[in-house]
């Protein structure tokens, strides 16, 4: 199965619906600093990285991301598992253990 325009359009559509961002922060002449604080609790961790199935990837996305929308996360997780014939067994496991949202079947 190949990546198609239709599938790209779906991710774009879900992103728009998620109202993630309208813009990046812009220049503010009045402020004195653009520095943010680095979250050492979250951002400095050395972690184990891996996922076996779509729900595990969704969970990672949900936990870490600014773009936090279950619809977007699921769309991305599905996109990641496209063209991965070598992990069909893991996908099967995913399907057994997780009820996929209906829109996935249109994806």
């Amino acid at each position, binding site marked *: 199965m190949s*990546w198609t*325009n239709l599938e*790209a*359009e779906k*991710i*774009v559509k879900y*992103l*728009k619906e*998620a109202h*993630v*961002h*309208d*813009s*990046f*922060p*812009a*220049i*503010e*002449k009045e*402020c*004195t*600093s*653009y*520095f*943010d*604080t*680095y979250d*050492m609790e979250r*951002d*400095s*961790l*050395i*972690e*184990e*990285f*891996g996922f076996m199935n779509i729900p595990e*990837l969704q969970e*990672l*996305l949900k936990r*870490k*991301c*600014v*773009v936090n929308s279950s619809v*977007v996360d699921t769309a*991305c997780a599905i*996109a*990641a598992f*496209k*063209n*991965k014939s*070598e*992990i069909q067994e893991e996908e099967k496991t995913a399907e057994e253990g997780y009820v996929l949202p209906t829109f996935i079947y249109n994806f």
Partner: protein
Amino acid sequence: MYILGISALYHDSAAALIKDGEIIAAAQEERFTRAKHDKSIPRNAIHYCMDFAHIEAENIDAVVYYDDPILTLDRFLANLAVIGDNQKDLLELSYDSMFQDKLWIAKKLEQAIGGLGKARKLFITKHHMAHAASAFYPSPYESAMIITVDGVGEWNTTTIGVGKENEITILKKIDYPHSIGLLYSAFTYFCGFRVNYGDYKLMGLAPYGEPVYYDVIKNKLIDVKEDGSFRLNLDYFDFQNGRSMTNKKFEMLFGGSRREPEQKITKREMDLAASVQKVVEEVIVKLARTAKALSGGVENLVLAGGVALNCVANGVLNREKIFKNIWVQPAAGDAGGALGAALLFYYSKCKNRRVAEKETQKGSYLGPAYTEEEILHYLEANGIPFDKYEYGEEFYDTIADLIAQQKIIGLFEGRMEFGPRALGNRSIIADPRSEIMQSRLNLSIKYRESFRPFAPAVLEEKCSEYFDLDMESPYMLFCGFVREKADIDFDLTKYLNHKNDLTEIIKRKRSAFPAITHVDYSARIQTVTRESNPVFYDIIKQFEKKTGCGMLINTSFNVRGEPIVCTPKDAYYCFMNTEIDVLVLNNFILYKEKQPKAYKRRDVYELD
């Protein structure tokens, strides 16, 4: 305890192996695949590291990757949400990279390594934590302030942190899309050089220009606060859309469309280079002042991230004396992330004790070496004529003589360097006193733009005699100024206004060492000690005995677009296909005129 660090899938893939905290091997994948800035999974570099240590996958305690693919995807999605009409194109363009490569890094590395070590899991660090670790842990300091600056890694583009003993704490950050690295890349692109390939060319071009666009850049493109934090005005850039770096508005600001690659360089490009260089220097200095203010009296600064390879800015930073000591990771770009990831795991995750030592980075001579037997076998098997020497005075004297006779030498010795600079083991060396050597090397050996001068490798004890640099610079990461300027009446600005011809300018003698002296009298200095590289040191020393000159030209052993040579075969082919006169392969000397013509072969490398 073996820890394998990996950087891959962005640019400059690399592997680095540490054993009980000691850096034992590191190399960039490009050197093996011969594809410059290769971003593929570094299979060859990984297996070089494992072979060096005589270990298999099951002997590795942890495999650590230098970037968090989830956060990178997050930034990609957020960017996608913000941009307007190009979302679908960008998504299609990036699908393989985002969804089929980066997210599957664990599987890809497992396949490449043959397992993920004893842990059977891939560990990941954050991109800028890996840069910070690559800067702090190999530095000779117990404690130091840390600055990382690059294009982007996950969300971050700039951080200020502090390292103490075995711990690193990041204090402040700036996030995408506000990036000094991307600003510099935008100008690299606009001036007709390749992004990620030609940034150092823009830096080399800057001294020819005047910073006449400095105010325009500051007023229109970037707002820099007193603490060094900044934001870009995205109205002028197009990198968010993935189409190009700059847009029409940027073109209008600077008088028309970008210079196309290989077109003649005009005064506009020189002035743009000078202007953006001045802005970068200002930001770096202000960041350092903020780091100092946060330091609580720490006198040491370490840097990494691609922008830390800007040796002109590093030179300015040194002259400002904000910190007493500065150390820059020689593989400051993404390749060094592999090393940082491994070190971070060892010290921060495993809580191992760290003792700061001077030579932890081992001169960055961390790549493959070839024994005398291996080289002899290669030469004999291919019927290549050679003269064999023992290491000693006769050997060094012969090479020094050849250099004094204006011969150009390909020098292949010991372990290959880790990082973008050749530091004497995969170098082309020549006489810096020659008035024609810069043009000759550029046009007939390197096949590159003729405007860039070469770097001097100088005996450390002689450095202050020739240059105003008051520090060690073993990794060619600091610029200083030549002390003795030529007695010539030469006004660069007037010359450029009338002639606009770089090749005429470089023919003008600027100092007693014209081949290494830039038009502003600056030089990109490598200081050499016998401790760090005895063979290279003794060659320079012998040259000094003969000529009174304690330095040589040192440029990387490659042609334009080609990665630095890795093997004796790479070196021999480069030697045979350029006008290099003599090749030194360890203790074997090969003369061009004695070589069989059959070995001439032209490898075609894409111009960078």
